[in-house]
């Protein structure tokens, strides 16, 4: 990846590869979560995805994207540690494949969507704003209608104030969000948010740099250096809520007290693999394979936040047994109750995932962004090398710092002790 600073804190990253038939443009705007209004930013992901001045109707947008052979345009919001990131992504067939210049229009279209939204007299088009509000309310309700989503979101809210900020906005927040709030969030995004632009595919780097510089005008942005978050929670609490469902959801959250910039990063990644992220892991083997207590169980590590989250869906009558089993497996890793063969297998699985990720456009962009946020220290080759060198003791030491902090159970209502 080659990086150029094209304005203060606006960086252009070229990732040239002949592997894909598409060219992807990804504009990632970042600000601190503590500075942003999540409801208004969630609004932006919908409103800036729908229409713009140049393409003011849904059919005009569809027609435009279809002239680019069904180009895929998305606006996404995500959090990375302390960051609230909004990404505009437009993937289009490489013009070389069909002997047409598609790149000029691709850059134009993205410029129209990002810089020319339907704001008139200081407000978003009122009909559009109303429609997006209705859409968001429906989206949030539907999200919570899925028991797995609901349990996860609820666990986040109950964990601590840092995690609560990363949960979806509530329906009340969406309903009380005004058109003015969303316009304010838009101006903050364009004027203040630091920006990273990624170009992925087979193209001429100089040509694309020149096109982007001539098409987009960027103002100077603030720099954001402090990315990683520390999650603190004093006690381990257990919270049980009821819902009229016939399967119980369990979400268990642990603090790792480590981040991806710590020396222990590869070790904690491996130790979590031993604990619950692969079919060979103790959680999968003990809870599913040996006792048939669930269909799926996994432990996901979030190294931006220093958290591990275990999730499963079980019969409510087995809740106590499953909870004990999860904690027992954590203890086994801490005590080094695993052999070198399992450690080697887990290393191989982690390395395979990292290597395969460069064959997917989406994973390429995720890895590129991580490299940008951490100044190359987490380049894939470096991580693979460090994983290879990790010892059993490294994994034990890393996992010794892992502490259970919240057990959230969404209990099926038909279950009675």
């Amino acid at each position, binding site marked *: 990846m080659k990086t150029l600073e094209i304005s203060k804190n606006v960086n252009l990253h070229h990732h040239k590869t002949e592997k894909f038939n598409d060219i992807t443009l990804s504009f990632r705007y970042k600000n601190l979560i503590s500075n942003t209004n999540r409801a208004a930013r969630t609004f932006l992901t919908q409103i800036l995805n729908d229409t713009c001045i140049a393409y003011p109707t*849904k059919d005009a947008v569809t027609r435009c994207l*279809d002239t680019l052979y069904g180009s895929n345009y998305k606006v996404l919001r995500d959090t990375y540690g302390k960051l609230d990131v909004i990404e505009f992504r437009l993937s289009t067939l490489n013009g070389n494949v069909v002997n047409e210049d598609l790149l000029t229009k691709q850059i134009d279209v993205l410029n129209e969507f990002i810089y020319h939204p339907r704001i008139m007299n200081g407000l978003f088009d009122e009909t559009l704003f109303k429609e997006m509000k*209705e859409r968001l309310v429906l989206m949030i309700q*539907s999200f919570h*209608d899925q028991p797995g989503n609901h349990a996860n979101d609820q666990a986040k809210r109950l964990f601590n104030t840092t995690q609560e900020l990363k949960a979806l906005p509530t329906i009340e927040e969406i309903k009380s969000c005004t058109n003015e709030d969303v316009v304010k969030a838009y101006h903050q995004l364009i004027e203040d948010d630091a920006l990273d632009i990624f170009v992925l595919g087979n193209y001429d780097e100089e040509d694309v740099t020149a096109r982007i510089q001539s098409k987009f005008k960027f103002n100077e942005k603030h720099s954001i250096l402090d990315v990683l978050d520390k999650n603190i929670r004093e006690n381990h609490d257990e919270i049980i809520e009821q819902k*009229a*469902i*016939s399967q119980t959801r369990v979400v268990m959250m642990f603090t790792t007290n480590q981040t991806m910039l710590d020396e222990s990063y590869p070790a904690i990644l491996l130790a979590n693999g031993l604990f619950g992220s692969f079919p060979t892991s103790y959680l999968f083997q003990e809870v599913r394979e040996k006792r048939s207590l669930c269909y799926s169980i996994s432990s996901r590590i979030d190294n931006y936040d220093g958290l591990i989250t275990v999730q499963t*869906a079980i019969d409510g009558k087995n809740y106590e047994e499953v909870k004990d089993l999860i904690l027992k497996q954590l203890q086994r890793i801490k005590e080094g109750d695993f052999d070198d063969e399992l450690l080697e297998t887990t290393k191989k699985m982690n390395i395979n995932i990292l290597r395969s990720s460069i064959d997917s456009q989406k994973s390429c962009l995720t890895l590129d962004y991580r490299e940008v946020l951490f100044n190359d220290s987490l380049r894939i080759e470096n991580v693979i090398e460090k994983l290879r060198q990790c010892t059993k003791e490294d994994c034990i030491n890393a996992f010794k710092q892992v502490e259970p902090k919240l057990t959230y159970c969404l209990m099926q209502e038909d279950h009675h002790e």
Partner: protein
Amino acid sequence: MNKLKNTLNEMIYTDTCDNGLKIVVWHKPDFATTACLFATPYGSLDSSQKTSDNQILSFPEGIAHFLEHKLFESEEGDVMNEYSALGANVNAFTSYNETVYYFDTSDEDVDKPLNLLLDFVQDLRITEQSVEKEKGIICQELNMYLEMPDSRLIFETFKSMYKNHPIKNDIGGTCDSVNKTTKQDLETCYSLNYHPQKMTLIAVTPKNPEMIIQLIKENQARKTFPEFKEIKRYFDKEPNEVLLQEKIIHMDVQNQKTCIGFKFSGLNQTDLNRVKTDWAFRFIFESHFTTMNPDYQKWITNHKISPYFDYESEFSKDYALTLFFDEGINEKEFEQFILDEIQTLKEKGISKEALMQLKNRSLGETLSVFNQPDNITVQYFRHELTGVNMFETIDVIKNLTVEDCNEIVKEMDFSNYSISIIKSAQ
């Protein structure tokens, strides 16, 4: 061995083993990943089958899915662990028409995981005890899907639409049918449906394709299989009418979810014509029921539909259907809206410009599938199942005319439909 160049000048090699196993190797020299799929056209709809001597064999619903779970057992214990030791990911899925086993790896060594794929799928090792143990896991899986309102809505709609066709059953069956399944049932179904002559192996790889084909042939040459016996899906004749016109299911949801399922007769025509009908139908519906239609905005603004409005269609030999979904909309008004718009669509048809727009889009989408090794394998197999391969399908799309699309939709009979509603009991 046959060699073929696709639209992007990538080489695709095809061959057949002496035992009938079909092989496809798609060469992707720029990729690090090798993705392989091994599949049989045996899915959840095949729980009853008819032999060539007209014997009807019936098994508990969900047996294809149960079998998929059990094939992961090996002499050494668990196939997943063996793959993990090779640093490769393995998994499988069962759908209505197929069972698919697949792995991917970025390791230099592709031979071991590929041999393992051929070996574990071609060797069922189960005990009474291991079959019993799996029942609890499968029941939790089935319960998980039943708790998801969107998948539940589709299951319930199919149940209301069909009286005899096995699409009325969930892919995994029910906890009851799973508990009734025996070791003997699994062994019988396995011997009937996993013969190499029925199966296909597809690899997308940066490795030398000829060596991959050689490896597969050598693996197959080491094994013996009983004589291949033809067997077909069986079910009693399905009436044209739906079984139930309306069904309400109570779940703990905030938004009412509605699905209208239109039932058509299966398309018992040539494979090519069926695929043509399928695409013509997709395009004409896409031109009317999506944001391509300028009226779409009006429908949203006037609350005729919500942003969750969607539809899907399927046209196969023995069933054909279209489902419309929406959320938070009154079901009666939704029903009237759909019926009115189908009438409008029949009268208006598709324009030349809209058809061109959709052809452009579908070409872009197909080429985008070529970016992902795992996606290529599944899409390639799905096309093979239709009897018209991926590249022939591109030609079918290219040659579709406005008249083809308009005629097809005019001939469709939309009078048989069923409505399912999921809402809160309060």
